[in-house]
Structures are given as C-alpha cells and as structure tokens.
C-alpha cells in the first residue's frame, strides 16, 4: 500500500504532446506486431461510465467500432457501469478474473480506485485511463489518454471574450453539481475571466444538469431575472441547445443577441452553429478508440508509454461549422 500513500500528491502533468491521432496507421502496425509476438489477440477490457451524454455515446461507439473492425487482432470486453463507480470496480474485478491483457477505464469519479488498481497491478494488468483522470499514485496506472477540462474552460473563456468584445454580462450553465467535468470547466472558465477580462461579469450561474431540458428551464429563468445578457457559457452542448430554445421563446436571437459558447462539439451544436444560432464550441474529442487500442498494444508489447497521451482538441466557430458538419461522426 505504499504506492497509494502518495495518492494525494498532485498528479504530475506530463509535458509530452504527441498528435497521436494522426499516427493511427502506425498504431495499427504496432498492434499487429504485438499480436504476432503473443500469438494471440489483444484482449482489452473497457469499463465505460455509462451513457449520460451524446459525447459519451460517441466515445463508446468509437471504441466498439474499432474493436469490431479489427476483430482479427483485438478483442474487446465492454462493461457499461451505468454511472456507478461500484459497477466499474466490479467490472474491473471481472476483467482481472477473466485475465485480460489491458484494462481501459473512463472513471466515473476521480477517487476511490486504490484498491482495485492495486489488484490489477498484482495481477500484472496495466490500466489505461480514458478521458477522465483518477486520483491514484502514478505507479498504479499505465497512462492517461484525454484532454484537460480546466484547459477547455479557459479556451471557452477566451472565445467568449472574443465574441462579446471583452465586456458585458454573461450567464453560465453548469453541469451536474459535483461532476468533475462541471467543476473543472467552471474553474477554468471563471478563473480565466477573472484573471484576464475584468469587463465581463458572470451575473448568474446555475446547474442545468448537463441536459437540454434543464438547460432550457434554467435559461428561461436567467432571461427573466437578468436584462441584457450578452452571452451564455454552457458546460456542454446539450445545455446550450436547451438555452437556444429558451432564448428564441423570449423573442431574442440566439447567436446574435446572445452569444453562445459551449464545450464538447456534438453534431447538434454544429447544426445550430450552421444555422447561426450558436457561436462556438470547444471540441473535446471523443473518438478515442484507436488511440486506446494502440496504447494498449504498446503496453502489451512491453513498450513504454507516456503518462499522459493528449488527445487533440480544437475550437470550432460558427463560420467553420457548415464546412465541417458533413464530416462530423457524432
């Protein structure tokens, strides 16, 4: 248990930034090599959080599609934890039981993984964290693949500032209270605004639970208690889509009267941007399937991998929307 004692220490942020997504082809080579050496398929057990959002579904789909397309080389054991950490822990234990090569995990929560990670380590199975971090000692997991919520919040703040000309009132639609995506996206955004844009005032901030329906309801209320709102920052696209409806009902023009910035980059928001009803989304790439398997293959082959494999994120604005829309997979 000595490893776990350092778990409270800050997780070192690795500096490496490799545009891994572009090297998928190379990755497949590696995968093939790995399976040759082992003489059998690469077995990956993946414990997914659940299906709380369209983004998550896209991620799941990407993983599953990769696995089925490369059925000769990899085998995927997939578990849907239905938003419960307990289920994820159970799933990992089952993977250990079944003797998979690598375990992938998108942790529901940051904490609480020491015990089960230790078990995996005992069994000699490396763990890859996907899109969310786990608060454990670095020795307990192999690598983290994904982006940084705080960074996303900051990017969104910059975009918002650009859109409304660095001053005016804005409102914020928060995600589920307590969810790390919500907390970090809020911290990143709020800090950036406070630090760099004194002219912008966040006049109201309330949770919309990451859903369209609530996003709409909360926005309705914001519109009534605050006059001349210049912009809306939503922690995910779904809430932004809900807010757009509320703005329209109030007789205002979303995207013009009130600027809209959100995070995730799901198809719906691109459609809205193409229609001029939204302004900007910070993409948080969910198509992590290839990267996951490629890293797993490396791990199986005993190669070293970075502690943080960054996925490529990007900012999409309304003028780019129409162009990229046809290529959007999710």
């Amino acid at each position: 248990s000595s490893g776990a004692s350092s778990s409270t220490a800050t997780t070192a942020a690795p500096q490496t930034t490799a545009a891994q997504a572009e090297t998928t082809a190379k990755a497949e080579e590696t995968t093939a090599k790995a399976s040759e050496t082992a003489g059998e398929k690469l077995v990956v057990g993946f414990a997914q959080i659940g299906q709380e959002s369209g983004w998550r579904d896209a991620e799941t789909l990407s993983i599953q599609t990769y696995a089925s397309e490369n059925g000769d080389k990899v085998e995927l054991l997939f578990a849907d934890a239905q938003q419960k950490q307990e289920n994820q822990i159970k799933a990992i234990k089952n993977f250990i039981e079944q003797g998979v090569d690598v375990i992938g995990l998108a942790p529901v929560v940051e904490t609480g993984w020491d015990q089960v990670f230790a078990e995996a380590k005992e069994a000699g199975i490396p763990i890859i964290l996907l899109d969310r971090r786990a608060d454990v000692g670095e020795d307990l997991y192999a690598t983290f693949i994904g982006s940084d919520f705080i960074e996303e919040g900051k990017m969104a703040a910059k975009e918002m500032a650009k859109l409304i000309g660095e001053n005016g009132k804005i409102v914020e639609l928060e995600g589920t209270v307590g969810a790390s995506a919500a907390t970090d996206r809020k911290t990143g955004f709020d800090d950036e605004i406070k630090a760099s844009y004194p002219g912008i005032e966040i006049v109201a901030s309330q949770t919309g639970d990451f859903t369209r329906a609530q996003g709409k309801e909360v926005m309705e209320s914001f519109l009534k208690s605050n006059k001349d709102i210049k912009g809306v920052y939503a922690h995910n696209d779904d809430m932004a889509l809900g807010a757009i409806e509320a703005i329209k009902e109030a007789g205002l023009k979303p995207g013009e009267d009130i600027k809209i910035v959100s995070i995730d980059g799901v198809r719906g928001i691109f459609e809205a941007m193409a229609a001029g009803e939204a302004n900007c989304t910070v993409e948080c790439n969910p198509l992590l399937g290839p990267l996951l398997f490629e890293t797993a293959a490396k791990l199986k082959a005993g190669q070293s991998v970075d502690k943080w494999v960054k996925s490529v994120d990007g900012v999409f604005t309304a003028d780019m929307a129409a162009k990229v829309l046809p290529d959007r997979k999710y």
Partner: protein
Amino acid sequence: MRETWNRLSEKQYFRPLIIFIIILLFNGIVSKGEFFTLSIVDGHLYGRIIDIVRNGSKLMILAGGMTMILATGGTDISVGSIMAISGAIACSIVNGNIFPSFNGNVAAAIILAILAGTVSGIWNGFLVAKIKIQPIVATMILMVAGRGIAQLITRGKIVTITSETYYFINGGYICGLPFPLFIVLFLVGFLVLFTGRTAFGLFLESVGCNPTASKYVGIKVDRMLLAIYTLSGAFAAVAGLIESAGIKGADCNNAGLGIEMDAILAVAIGGTNLMGGRFSIPASVIGALIVQSITTTVLALGVPAAYIRVLKALLIIIICLSQSKQFKDLVIKRKMINRKVVGS
C-alpha cells in the same frame, strides 16, 4: 359567501392551493413584482407564470395518473422511463429513423408513442395485478429496462428533429396560452370526470382502503389495477411527447430522469395518502404546480447550485408540516402556553 368559503376549505385541494398562492406571493414580493409580469412576445404571453405552467405540465399529467395508483397503495416508478421510450419513438418516427413508411408523419408518431406508453402500462399492470408483484419492484423492472429500450430505438444517440408541427406540442400557443396547458386540462379533466362521474373513483378509494373488503363486495380489484397502470403509462407517454417537443429531440438518457419522485411528491403534497385511500386529482395537480414552483423559486432566487437540494429538502418539510394536524395542534398549544405565561 361564508358558506362557500367553508365548503371550499373542506376540499382536499384547499390547502395545497393556499400553499401555492403563498409561494407565488413570496416570489412576487422578493422579485418586486417582476415575477408576475406578463408581456406579449411574438403574439403570445411570456413570463414566469407561463413558464411554471408549461414546465410543470409534464408533472401535472404524471401526477394525475400517479394519484390513482397511489390511491390504491401502489406506486409507478417507471413513468420517467416510459417518457423516454415515448420520446424516442416519436422523434425517431418524425425523423424517419424507424418506420420510414410513416414518412415522418407527426400524427403517426404521436399515436405510436402513446400506444407504446399504453403497452408499457399494461405490462406494469399485468405484473402488479396478475402476478401480484409488489408495485415498486414490478415497475422498477420497466424503469431499468425502459431507458435501455429507448436507447435501442435511437441507437443511443440524441435524436434531433425538425418539425414545426411536433414542436407545437410544447412550444405552441392557443389564444396566447401555452399548448401544454390545454393538454393538461384535457387529460386531467378526463380523469376528474372519469373518476367523478363514474363509480371508478369510489372503487379506487375502496380498494385503497381495504382491498379484501373491496374484493368481498365484488369489485374486480385486478381489473382496476390493470386499468390505472395502463392509464398511467399512457399519460407518461404524453408527458414524454411534451418533453421531447420541448428540447426538439429525444434524449433517452435524461428524459424524465427522476421525475417519478417528483410526481409522488406532488401527490403527497396534494394531501393524498401514499398508503392508499382518499385521493383528489385536482389537489395532486396543484401539488405538481407547487413542486414546479419550488424549482422556479430556487432559480429565481439565484441560490447557488450547491444549495438547491438543501433548500428543497427544507421546503418540502415545511410544506408537509404545515399540512400536519399534529403539528398545528402543537403550535397552538405552544402559543396558548406562551400567552398564559405572558398573561400571568
């Protein structure tokens, strides 16, 4: 005048109504009147009151169906999932994802969605009435499965639709009033008439009070149960339509998530005993308005997100205590003692 007042005050919906009015007044005062302002935007009424009605419409409909079930001492916790199924079916049809032959026909979408809700209700009713599984567990099966089924229909995606006709279900206005209000009036009116004008209401209360004795007077308890669970399912489907029309799409993961608790809460605030017996559908509907207005109040007050639940919990307790006879007796006694102390 006095007599009408007395008669009114005996009704079950009287207290919930007073509480609702108090909540509204409170909001009006805190917001310095902003709360009650109604303006005309794009030819329809616009304001917080309208929001309460429109956003509360789902809950009011669900509360109507739920009241009957609770009156028999049962529960239906699958309504949220049925909403998801209904939304998924309707949006997928409008979108042409399933049953392409319907060609995005909104009417077909609505009918099939309600049909799906009805079938779900029958399934619940069958488990409760025939297999005699305890309601909470019987409906839990569909609660868990329902979202999965909805996701199977939409292939796990949020289905976004474009159909002005379909949007009308939530966003439409008739005479400046939101369309969901008319749906509520229609469905709740139907229920009130059905339970009041036929002997159905009497039989329900009888079953809720004493199922054995009800069986002994010849009431077909099984059939009653089947009927009310079916109705509840159908109503949930309608609520699902309203929800999906509101967000212009089907969000299987979140549609109606946790709304069953709110519906039960609404019925309880309406003063119906959850263990069965006397019920009042109008009271439950007002209960639903109260639950909705609590949310609106919390939003209007700008309470920090982290404190919302705490505040809601306190409000629920206060509302329930204010309806408790025992509590009133206690307070009155206190006051009298105080007065005596002061007097001497």
